[in-house]
Structure formats: C-alpha cells, structure tokens
C-alpha cells in the first residue's frame, strides 16, 4: 500500500530529525519525546475535527473511546484496535497487536529501547483527538513484544 | 387590574390575603416593626381540626386587584389589620372613624378586621373589644402575634362558613354567575332571558352550566384556602369538565390553574418560590403525601355520573376515596400551558396570564426543565400589559432576570438585568436612579463572565465576550459617574484599560486614557479595595501593562563602591551571620529563580539601582510619574523617577534607584507607578512573564565612601572598568615624580582603616628599583577621618628601566674587547655601524626611533578602606587608581669598563653615556664634574670609586613586589646577588642627569649594566694588600722618594678580610722602568738590587689576620722605578679570583743623594 509507506517514511524521518537537532544542542535531550508528542497532539486535534464532522454526537466517554478504537484507528492506521479494556473509572487500555508504525522494526527485543520514540507521535495523536472532544487525558504507551503495543489512556477530571 | 404581582407562586392560591396598613400617621420604623411581627404569623393550625391556614400579608394592595377576588379567591382581601398611634383619648374617635373608613375600602370582601392602637392608655384602653387592641407603646406589646392568630381563626370561621355555604348550595338554577371585572357588562340579562330562541339554542342550559362551573371552581378555591386539598382537587376537576363543555375559556383557564396550584402544593411542599419564601411543609401533609401520592398517576376519577344538575353531593368523601386527583408533574405544565393559552385570548387578562406564566416557570425551574421554562418566559416577555409605569417596567425586567437565573440561563438573566438597569435611567424618568442602575449592572457581571478581579484575566485566553464586556464596563463607568462617585469610575475605567487593552483600537485607547485622566483629576486612583455599600468589594487594579515590564535586573554597585569581605581565617568569623543563605521557601513554583539570592551586595546608605526593561504598548507617548520600587525586608527609601516613553517603543531601559536605610536582606517585590493619575503597585509574583535573575540582595552595613583626586591630571587614556580613575604621565628613564593622592570622605561614615598596595602590571621590562613608593604613616595619623575631611598621601613614582638593549645599534667608542652585552667585538652578531659623524649628517636616522622608543609601565594603586558598621562586620571597599607611565629613555650606558686606578683600593669606572633624548643633558656624579651631552651624543665618563666590599652585601629578602618568583636555584641566587651588588654600586656612584631646558632630572642607574667582570673589578678584594715603602704607604700616585744607595724598606702586609684562610703565597718583586712609550724595561738587574731575596713567601693567613713581609731593596741609580709585585704560580692554584691579587703599584723615585763634601 503505497500511501501507508509514505507516512511511515515521513514519521521515521521526523523522529530522526528531532533527535539530531537535539544532539546539535538545540534542545535538551529529554525533550525530544515531548516534541514528538506535541506534534501528534496538534495533528490529532485537526484529524478529529475532520473525522467527526459527519458522525452523530457522542453519548459518553465510552462512546468516544470506541470511536477512537474503531473509526479513528481505521482511518489513520487502516486497522482497528484489537482490544479495549477499561476499569470504568477513567482508565482505558487500547491494545494493538500489530502496530503499523512499529511494523518495520524487527520483532523481538533488539530495538526495544527505541520503541518509545516511535510511539510518541501516536500518543500525542490520541491525546489531541480526545482533547478536542473535550476529554483531558494523559496517554502513554508501552511495548513488551514488538510489534504489539498498548496505549494507556488516563482521563483527567 | 393593573399591577402584576411577580412574586406570586402557585402555593399562594391556598393563602388568605390580609392587608396591614397604618391609620393616620405612624412612624415608618415602628410600623414595619409591628408588620414584621404580624407577618411572622404565616401559618396557623386551626383549633379542633387538622387543617392549616396560610396567610399572605400585604401592606399595600391596590383596590382594583380586589375586584378579581371572585375569579381567584386568594386575590381578595379578607382581613384587615390597621395599626395606629393614638396618644390621647381625644384622638380616639377620629382614629376610630378612620378605621371604619378603611374598612369600607375593602368592605365587599372583608371577612374581619382588627385595629391595633398604640400609645393610648386610660379608660378607653381598658375596654375589652375584640376588634380593637390597645397597647401602651410599640415596645410593650407582647401578644400581638397571639391576637393575630385569633384574628386568623376568626377569619377561618367565616371562610369555612362561606365554603360550606357555597358547596352545598342547592339553589339549583339560582346559582349566581361569578364574573371578572371586564365581563360584567357582557352578562347582564342573560339569566332572565327566556325567549324561545335562546331556549332552543340551549342558551339557558348553557348559562346554567356556566354558572355551575364557575361556582364549582370558586368552591375549589375556597377549599384550597381552607386547607382541604383533596376536596379542592375534586372541585377543580368537576369545574374543568363543566366549563370545558361550555367553552368558558377564561374560567376554564382559572380552573385549570387551580388544579395546577393544588398539584404543585401537593408535589412540592417546599414551595416554588425559590430561596425566598420557602415554606415549611406541614407535617401532616407530608404524611398524607406518602399515602396518597402515586408517581405518574394522573387519573381523573370523577365519575361523570356524579354530576347532576342538582349540584354535587356535598359529601365528597366517597369521591375522595376513589380519587387520586393530583396531576402528575408533567401534567401540571401541560395544564398551565393550556390555561395560559386560554388567558391569552383575553387582552384584559394580561396580568393573570403573566402571573400564570411566572408560576409555571417557577414550577419548571424546580423540575429542571429549563428549555420549556425559557419558552414560557419568552412568552411572558411579550404579554402586553398596556401602559406600565417605569417602576413597573424595572420590576418586570428584574423579575424576568431572576426567573432566568433560577432556570440557569445566566446570560439571559444578565441580559434582562441589564435591560432593567437601563430602564432605571430611561430618559422619561424624571429622577433617574443611577444608584440602582449601577447596582443592577454590577449584578449582571457574572452572567457575562466578567469578574472585577484583574488576577482572573492575567493568565490564559480571554474568557467571555470582549466586545460585550467592554460595553458593560463603559456603562459601569458612566453609571458610577452619574451616581456621583468618581472613585468608582476611575476604578472601572482602570479595569477596562488593564484587562481589555488588547481589544481596544488605537482610537479607543486614546479616548479611554483621556477620560481616565479626566476622572483622576477629580479623584486619583489608588490601590485600596473599594467596598460598596452592599458589601461587594472591588479589588485593586494595578496597571501591569502600562508599561509592560519585561525584565528586572538588580545592578551591582559601581566598582569603587562594592563591599568586599575580609577572608576570615579558620572559621573565626567576624560577623555572626553567614554571608549566603539560600532561602528554602520557594514563593511559588516559578519562584526559584526569584528567590535566588544575588551574589553581589548592596551597602546601606548608598544609592542602589535596579534596571527594568519596559515596553510601551500604547500608540502615543506614555508619561509615567512616580515610578519606584516596592521592597521588603529592609527599610528602603525609594527615589521615584518620572519618565516619558515614546509610542510603541522597543525595549526601553529604566533605572530605578533607592537607598537602603537599614542592613539586612532586601527583596525587590515589585514596583509602583503612577500613570494617568492612577497609582498602581505591581508585584513581580503576579507577573509571570517577567524575567529576573534574582530579587534578593544582602545589604551590608554602611561603609565610608572616599573620593580620590590626584595632583596630576586625570588621564584620557582608556581605563579598564575596574579602575576608578587613572593618571598617566610621561617620565624620562630615571626620573621620579611625586603624586599626591587626596582622599576625601564623601560618605557619612568615618573612615577607620586604610591600606595601600600597589601592583605593577606584568611587563617584559626589567624594572629596577621601586616603581611606586609611599609613606602612609602621616595619612594614617588622620584616622578616623570624619565625613567631609580629607587626607593626602604622597606617592613617589620612579622609573628605572633598562634601555641598554639598544646598545647594539650604537658605535663603539673604544675598543677594549668588552662590551656590556657580553659580545666580543669580533662577534658577527654585532653590527658595525658607520661612525657617529656620518650618522649625524644623515637626514633621517633610521635607528633613532628604535632606540628612542617609549616604553610604558602600568601599575594599579589599590586602596582598601573601611569604617563604620561595615568595618565591624568585616567589609571593606577598594579604590583603584591606575598609573600609567610612558617612559622615554634618557641616558643609558652603552659600555662599562674599568681602569685600574693608581690605588688598589680604587678603580676608575669608565661609562660610555649616551643621551637618547633630544635635549641637551648634563650628567653628573657625586664627586665628578658634569658631563654635557648633546642630543644623541655619546661620551665617556670616568669615575673614580673606592672598591666595594661586596661580602658585606646581604642578599635582600624578596620584598620587592615586582619580583614574584621564589628564588630557589643557585643561579637565581647568584643573580640576586649581582643585583644587590649593583644597587650598592649605584647608590655609591649616584649618577644623575638633568635636562636644563626642561628642568627635569633623574637618576642614571648603572644597575643593569654591570656585569660580572666589571663587578669583579670593582670589588674590593678581601685580601687587603698594603705596601709600605719606608714605612709610608704606597698607593695611587704616591711617589716614594728615596735616595740612591740607601736601602729602601719594603713592607708588604696582607690582611685577610675574606672568610677563608688564604695562602700560602709566593710573591716576587720585579722592578721595572716605564719609558712612557709603552715599553717597560725589566732589565734592571744592575740597577736595583734586593737585599735579600726578591721572592718572599707568605704563609697561610687566617681570616681577619694579617701577615707581613719585610724586605728591602737598594737603588743604585737614580730614576723612576716601578715595582711590580706579582705572584708566582704555586700549588694552590688559581682558585681565588685574580682581582684579589691586585697590589698597589709602587713608584719609587730614586734620587740623587746629595753630593757629600769630600766625594
């Protein structure tokens, strides 16, 4: 799928660029992830506006999360979230067993420590989307076995 | 009916109306006191039954409203309580009459009345009448409430009787038609119409039903008032059926409304009036509610068959058993809607309609159905009530606003409140109520998300609608101005300027500031919190954007005023407090930087500066008056500044100064300004965008301040910033100059200590002697120096540089193989120049600039001084004076050589002196003649000196500050020794030069030019050889004369002044004759004979001992003879320097012996 590859390449290069400019002293090292996440945030805000243009109004939080898992994920990553779990108290775990952006990295433990870099943008994407829908949240991601990853969304009241 | 009662609610339908009014003149305060007491009786439990009676009181009720009493019984006045003051019995009849008159006004509806008389005593007061109560005074009336209760009971009796009367009215056809005021004329004669047509049309039956229906509804009202809720419901239902069938819309609406009211009373025992007028639900009702209420049940359970033309069975208890007549909450609203729509058909029923809307809205508010409530209200707005007075309009809008508030439409509520406010000051009102307008406007603020606290606007995006808010603020300003309170106007206008600055256009900015200045000319704005009469507080509005402060930087004191702390040794602290304390309390999360203590310090009593970078956002010039600092921690005298910032300028630096008056830690909290007549205190913690690198500075106790001035003019030479001033002068090498430094105490403290040190800046030049020297003793004797006094310190500047390196460019005057630089003549490194004469004729002398080049010396004189309280704490100040000397070469010695003098103890020192100046110069030494040198001329001068005993020269301790390194190596020690010797020689020779034309003079030092060889020559040999000829010492040019043929005794004495034993030596005496043409004749074996050997031995001589050898010789011929006493090489070798073996030359003249007679 040609168009998928385009974004993947762009995404990879963005990450490289951000890290290289950190090395050049343009900013502190720990801020790279934040920068990527913020990029994702802004994109997420715009995307959600576009995707929810024609949908009905959401009933509640769960409805919103389901939308993220199904329609949103499909539009962006061409597949749905494989598993959504919640404790009904504001914590949601979205599990994607074959996360598209991690696909190109080798499965297994070899590049595990680099995985967070590749997830930062997507975390921001989710956070931005939720924020524009009126839900304040913190989104983190964890990877145990590539390319599966879990996104954890903590709703803030 | 003209006046709507906006405060009416559904539950008012169950009340009876009692009017309380004053008769005659009653003081208002007293009246209302009694009124309040009466009003407290709002609910009465009727004796012998379980029913509750509710009473509504009014102290003013238009009689027109009474006419609607049949329509809705709670509208008619059934009770009258009159309050009057009567002081004497004479007034009583009059009072009584007035009371009766008053009763007449409401006569048609009045059930009962009472008169309360205050102040009357005496016989009349003793009367026991039920309708009049006498009290001695307003303060002494304990049983008012009880009387009122009794009164209410009596009303109840009448009410009850009427109810029963009507309820069981079996008059059949003769039920009278109840009417509303505007209907009366419509129905005249209808009852008696018995024409056949009307019979056919069933008009009569129609009419009868109408009467029945209306009466039924009336009975329902009465039941409701009498506390019989269920009965009322039944009656209302019946009335609704009846009236619906005859399309009697107005009364149908009333019946529906009655239903609604009863249901409301049933469902909402707490009342629907909102926070005001909440009723206490009666206990019994609540219990009943539990039994009878079934949610959602709406069942009209009147058996239509029960409706007979003969009336209704009075005993409704059977119906009650079956009936659950209460409307469900949704139904209540439906019915209200229906009722209102019916009312709407009658334009004269506008007030009723309005009141019904209001009641419905209240119910909806409780049901939290805001959308429908707003629709009702929307409707209510458009109900036309005819001509309303301004007061009424205001009331109407206020009530609308309140109702919107109740349903949660805050913005709409604010909108209507604003309309009400505008109405207060409508042009048609003769006396506009600005105060009321202002108050209402203030109340609208929350609806527009406008808080009057500027802190709410400091962060994040602007909340609310800027355009609307600005308008509102303008209105507030206008209202407060018209109210006559310019202070409020100033405050609001400042608020507008502060919070809406970004939204104002340039033109608006100008207008706002102009009006602000206008207002502040009457009432300057300040920082106090304004408290309004109703308790609301208007917080202060500091102008943080006029100007915008970008950064605050505390500046260090100028270098000469900075305090330094004496380093204390080994923990022995001079002051009790440690110099650096990091405050652990962070003021807020961003405050770490702010709390940081700055490392420099300020001094009490001295002007300190803080620099602010400000920005003017206005499109015109901004005048800031009275800008100063806000500080805490230390008493600080802020010296205000006034400045004028150009329009929309970039960052502009402003320096605020002040003087700390006590010592301690001072924190700069903010600044205060006065702009447009408004003074503001802006705290830095409220301005998160301001950059600062620390706001806390330690203020050390006061130190004295000295001002330095010098006898020499200040130099134009660029000084480094560390120096407070510098002098520069031009000296010739060897010259010295006195510089008098005057220190004046320009501070307020006494000067107690003073130290002076100097530091020569490192230079490649070899500096001989001491550059700067001074004596501080005399100055120190003036301490402690009081303010205003001064002291003078003389400093001697002396330059002695070594210019001798230039020598290589000069020609040699004499060639004896030795030159100062140590290079032999034949060395290829030496340049052989043209002769001096040739040099002189050349037009420009290429080498001249090189050996005339100026060297410069820089040094810094450092004054450390202290005094006062600062001294106690261990602080001092430093003043630095830079000294820059341009040194021109004066004279230098191109070559030094020695010639032996006639005496072994003396020596001729030959110095080739070169005058490198452009002036004529005279060189002189201690006991010599002056040597005159022309510019660039070199001459030789010879000085005869005594040889020096160098062993006594001690190596001086390293105290010359220019000599930094430690001498450790033997070579360096040797050098030092050389220097010391040189100094000794120099001071002995004391060679001076002077330039008569410039009147300048100086020293010409030989220190650098003496090398080892020369020194050896100059050194007095520690072996002192004395030669005595015939007992007379022979030295120098002393010529010993002796006769021929007579033996001459020769004594050679050796005194050993050295530290080691010397010897043994072998000396031989060799006579010679000097032919004065360079030839020495040593063939004198037959001219001179020795008596004894000419060689003699000296044994070892210990230090400080001497040894003498004696010999003799005999001259056989006359002549001048010299004796050369020389040493023979012997075993001891030449360990000792050759110079030590310098014996004086002996010159003996052998003379003819006088011819003896007799030859």
């Amino acid at each position: 799928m040609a168009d998928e590859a385009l974004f993947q390449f762009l995404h990879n290069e963005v990450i490289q660029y951000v890290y290289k400019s950190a090395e050049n002293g343009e900013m502190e090292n720990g801020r790279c992830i934040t920068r990527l996440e913020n990029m994702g945030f802004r994109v997420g805000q715009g995307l959600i506006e576009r995707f929810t243009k024609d949908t009905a109004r959401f009933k509640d939080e769960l409805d919103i999360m389901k939308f993220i898992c199904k329609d949103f994920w499909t539009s962006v990553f061409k597949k749905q979230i494989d598993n959504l779990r919640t404790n009904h108290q504001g914590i949601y775990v979205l599990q994607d067993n074959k996360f598209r952006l991690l696909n190109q990295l080798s499965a297994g433990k070899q590049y595990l420590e680099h995985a967070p870099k590749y997830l930062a943008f997507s975390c921001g994407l989710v956070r931005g989307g939720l924020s524009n829908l009126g839900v304040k949240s913190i989104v983190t991601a964890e990877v145990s076995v590539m390319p599966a990853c879990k996104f954890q969304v903590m709703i803030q009241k | 009916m003209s006046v709507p009662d906006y405060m009416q609610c559904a539950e008012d339908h169950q009340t009876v109306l009692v009017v309380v009014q004053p008769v005659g003149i009653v003081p208002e305060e007293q009246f209302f006191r009694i009124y309040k007491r009466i009003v407290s009786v709002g609910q009465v439990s009727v004796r012998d039954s379980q029913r509750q009676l509710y009473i509504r009181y009014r102290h003013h009720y238009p009689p027109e409203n009474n006419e609607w009493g049949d329509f809705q019984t709670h509208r008619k006045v059934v009770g009258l309580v009159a309050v009057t003051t009567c002081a004497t019995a004479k007034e009583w009849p009059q009072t009584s009459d007035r009371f009766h008159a008053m009763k007449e006004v409401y006569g048609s509806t009045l059930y009962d009345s009472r008169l309360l008389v205050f102040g009357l005593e005496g016989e009349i007061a003793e009367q026991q009448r039920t309708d009049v109560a006498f009290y001695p005074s307003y303060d002494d009336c304990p049983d008012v409430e009880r009387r009122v209760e009794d009164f209410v009971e009596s009303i109840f009796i009448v009410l009850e009787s009427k109810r029963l009367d009507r309820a069981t009215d079996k008059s059949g056809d003769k039920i009278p038609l109840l009417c509303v005021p505007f209907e009366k004329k419509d129905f005249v004669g209808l009852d008696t119409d018995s024409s056949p047509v009307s019979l056919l049309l069933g008009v009569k039956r129609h009419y009868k039903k109408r009467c029945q229906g209306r009466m039924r509804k009336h009975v329902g009202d009465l039941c409701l008032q009498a506390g019989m809720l269920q009965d009322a419901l039944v009656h209302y239902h019946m009335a609704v059926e009846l009236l619906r069938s005859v399309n009697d819309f107005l009364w149908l609406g009333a019946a529906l409304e009655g239903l609604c009211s009863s249901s409301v009373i049933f469902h909402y025992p707490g009342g629907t009036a909102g926070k005001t007028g909440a009723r206490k639900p009666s206990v019994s009702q609540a219990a009943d509610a539990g039994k009878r209420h079934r949610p959602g049940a709406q069942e009209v359970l009147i058996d239509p068959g029960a409706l007979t033309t003969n009336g209704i069975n009075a005993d409704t208890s059977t119906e009650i058993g079956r009936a659950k007549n209460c409307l469900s909450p949704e139904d209540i609203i439906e019915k209200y809607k229906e009722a209102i729509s019916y009312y709407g058909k009658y334009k004269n029923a506008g007030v009723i309609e309005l009141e019904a809307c209001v009641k419905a809205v209240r119910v909806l508010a409780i049901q939290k159905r805001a959308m429908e409530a707003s629709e009702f209200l929307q409707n209510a707005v458009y109900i036309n009530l005819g001509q309303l007075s301004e007061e009424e309009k205001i009331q109407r809008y206020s009530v609308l606003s309140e109702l919107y508030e109740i349903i949660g439409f805050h913005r709409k509520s604010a909108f209507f409140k604003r309309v009400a406010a505008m109405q207060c000051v409508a042009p048609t009102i003769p006396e506009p109520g600005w105060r009321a307008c202002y108050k209402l406007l203030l109340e609208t603020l929350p609806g527009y998300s406008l808080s009057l606290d500027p802190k709410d606007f400091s962060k994040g995006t602007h909340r609310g609608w800027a355009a609307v808010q600005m308008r509102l603020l303008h209105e507030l300003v206008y209202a407060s101005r018209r109210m006559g309170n310019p202070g409020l106007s100033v405050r609001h206008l400042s608020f507008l300027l502060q919070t809406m600055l970004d939204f104002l256009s340039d033109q608006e900015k100008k207008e706002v500031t102009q009006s602000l200045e206008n207002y502040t000319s009457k009432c300057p704005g300040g920082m106090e919190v304004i408290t309004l009469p109703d308790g609301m507080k208007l917080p202060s509005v500091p102008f943080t954007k006029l100007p915008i402060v970008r950064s605050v930087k505390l500046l260090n004191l100028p270098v000469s005023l900075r305090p330094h702390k004496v380093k204390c040794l080994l923990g022995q602290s001079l002051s009790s407090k440690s110099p650096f304390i990091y405050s652990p309390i962070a003021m807020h999360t961003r405050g770490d930087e702010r709390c940081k203590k700055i490392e420099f310090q300020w001094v009490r009593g001295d002007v300190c500066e803080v620099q602010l970078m400000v920005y003017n956002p206005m499109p015109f010039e901004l005048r800031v008056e009275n800008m100063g600092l806000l500080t805490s921690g230390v008493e600080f005298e802020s010296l205000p500044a006034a400045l004028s910032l150009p329009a929309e300028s970039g960052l502009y630096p402003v320096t605020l100064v002040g003087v700390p008056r006590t010592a301690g830690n001072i924190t700069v909290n903010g600044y205060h300004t006065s702009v447009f007549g408004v003074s503001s205190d802006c705290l830095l913690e409220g301005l998160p965008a301001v950059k600062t690198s620390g706001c806390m500075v330690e203020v050390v106790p006061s130190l004295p301040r000295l001002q330095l001035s010098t006898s020499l003019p200040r130099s134009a030479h660029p000084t480094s910033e560390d120096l407070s001033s510098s002098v520069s002068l031009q000296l010739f090498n060897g010259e010295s100059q006195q510089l008098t430094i005057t220190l004046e105490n320009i501070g307020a403290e006494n000067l107690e200590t003073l130290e002076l040190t100097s530091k020569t800046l490192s230079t490649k030049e070899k500096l001989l002697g001491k550059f700067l020297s001074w004596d501080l003793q005399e100055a120190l004797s003036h301490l402690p120096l009081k303010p205003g006094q001064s002291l003078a310190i003389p400093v001697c500047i002396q330059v002695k540089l070594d210019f001798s390196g230039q020598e290589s460019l000069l020609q040699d005057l004499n060639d004896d193989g030795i030159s100062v630089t140590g290079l032999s003549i034949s060395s290829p490194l030496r340049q052989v120049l043209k002769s001096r004469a040739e040099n002189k004729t050349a037009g420009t002398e290429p080498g001249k600039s090189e050996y005339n080049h100026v060297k410069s010396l820089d040094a810094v004189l450092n004054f450390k001084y202290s005094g006062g309280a600062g001294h106690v704490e261990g602080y001092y100040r430093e003043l630095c004076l830079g000294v820059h000397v341009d040194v021109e070469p004066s004279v230098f010695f191109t070559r030094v050589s020695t010639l032996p003098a006639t005496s072994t103890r003396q020596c001729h020192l030959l110095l080739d002196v070169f005058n490198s100046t452009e002036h004529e110069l005279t060189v002189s030494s201690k006991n010599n003649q002056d040597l005159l040198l022309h510019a660039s001329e070199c001459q030789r001068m010879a000085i005869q000196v005594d040889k020096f005993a160098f062993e006594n020269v001690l190596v001086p301790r390293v105290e010359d500050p220019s000599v930094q390194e430690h001498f450790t190596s033997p070579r360096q020690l040797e050098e030092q020794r050389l220097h010391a010797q040189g100094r000794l020689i120099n001071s002995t020779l004391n060679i001076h030069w002077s330039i008569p034309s410039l009147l300048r003079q100086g020293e010409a030092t030989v220190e650098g030019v003496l090398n080892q060889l020369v020194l050896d020559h100059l050194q007095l040999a520690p072996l002192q050889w004395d030669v005595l000829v015939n007992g007379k010492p022979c030295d120098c040019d002393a010529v010993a004369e002796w006769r021929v043929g007579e033996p001459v005794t020769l004594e050679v004495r050796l005194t050993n002044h050295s530290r080691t034993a010397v010897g043994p030596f072998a000396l031989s005496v060799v006579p010679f004759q000097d032919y004065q043409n360079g030839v020495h004749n040593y063939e004198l074996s037959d001219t001179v004979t020795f008596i004894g050997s000419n060689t003699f031995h000296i044994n070892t001589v210990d230090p400080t001992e001497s040894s003498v050898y004696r010999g003799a010789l005999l001259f056989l011929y006359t002549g001048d003879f010299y004796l050369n006493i020389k040493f023979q090489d012997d075993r001891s070798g030449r360990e000792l320097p050759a110079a030590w073996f310098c014996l004086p030359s002996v010159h003996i003249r052998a003379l003819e012996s006088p011819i003896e007679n007799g030859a």
Partner: protein
Amino acid sequence: MTCLCFLCVSRDYDELSSIMAVCIAVIAKENYPLYIRSVPTQNELKFHYTVHTSLDVVEEKISSVGKALADQRELYLGLLYPTEDYKVYGYVTNSKVKFVIVVDSSNTSLRDNEIRSMFRKLHNSFTDVMCNPFYIPGDPIQSKAFDSMVSAMMVQAC
C-alpha cells in the same frame, strides 16, 4: 494516513442558498467567540448580545440532564429561540464548537434544509481551518477562505 500528509480540502458545492444570515458566529468550547461577523448596522453590539444569550439555550440543549437519547445525536440543534426580529439557530460539533446563525424573522421562505446546509458549509470550512497547521486552536479565526465562505452566506449590505 493520507490525511496526515495532505490536507484534504473538501467543499460542498451546494446550490446557492437563498437564505441570508444577518449574523454568523463561531464559538469555542470555552464559550468565547472565535469568529463573529454581522451585517454592518448601527448597533452591531446587539448581535453580540443575541448570540451571547443564545448560548444559554445551546448549553441547555446539549446538557445531558433528563434528555431522551435521540435528542442528542444530531449536531444540528435547530431553532434556539425566536426574538421579535430575528430567529436564532444553533449547531454544535463533536468538538463542542458552536455555530450560531441569526436570520431575519421576516425571511419567510425558511426551510430547515437550507439552514442545515449553511451549517454544514460552516462545519466544513471550520474543519479546514482546524487542519491548517498554522492555526493554533483557540485563536480567533482569521482565514480568508473562511471569511469568503461566510460572506457568501450573509446579507449583502447596501
């Protein structure tokens, strides 16, 4: 994923609506105006007031207290409230941005569909604005494209 790379600009090329608004406003979720444009009259501020007070009704409509589920699903809110001279319509996006259109009451040829399509156009343009990377959410809308779209919907001032 293509949406991320390329801004998809979709325009609804409806037939020109015959409805002309007198005031159009876009309100952020925090209830302050992002964009408000009205026909220039003497007292433009009154439109501010009208739209401002209509927010009460909007909030009421979208609050979830006591409403049947079906009411809430639509983004279009319909007529908010009528005043003497105007009718006010509302629309709330999923991102809680509110659009308000004020129409002259005398304009009798109102059809609900036409109002809906005006809102759709607004929503589309707003989405484009939101996707513009140079636009910071929360700032006033200054896009010329948005302006021209709104102008086409407003009564032409004479």
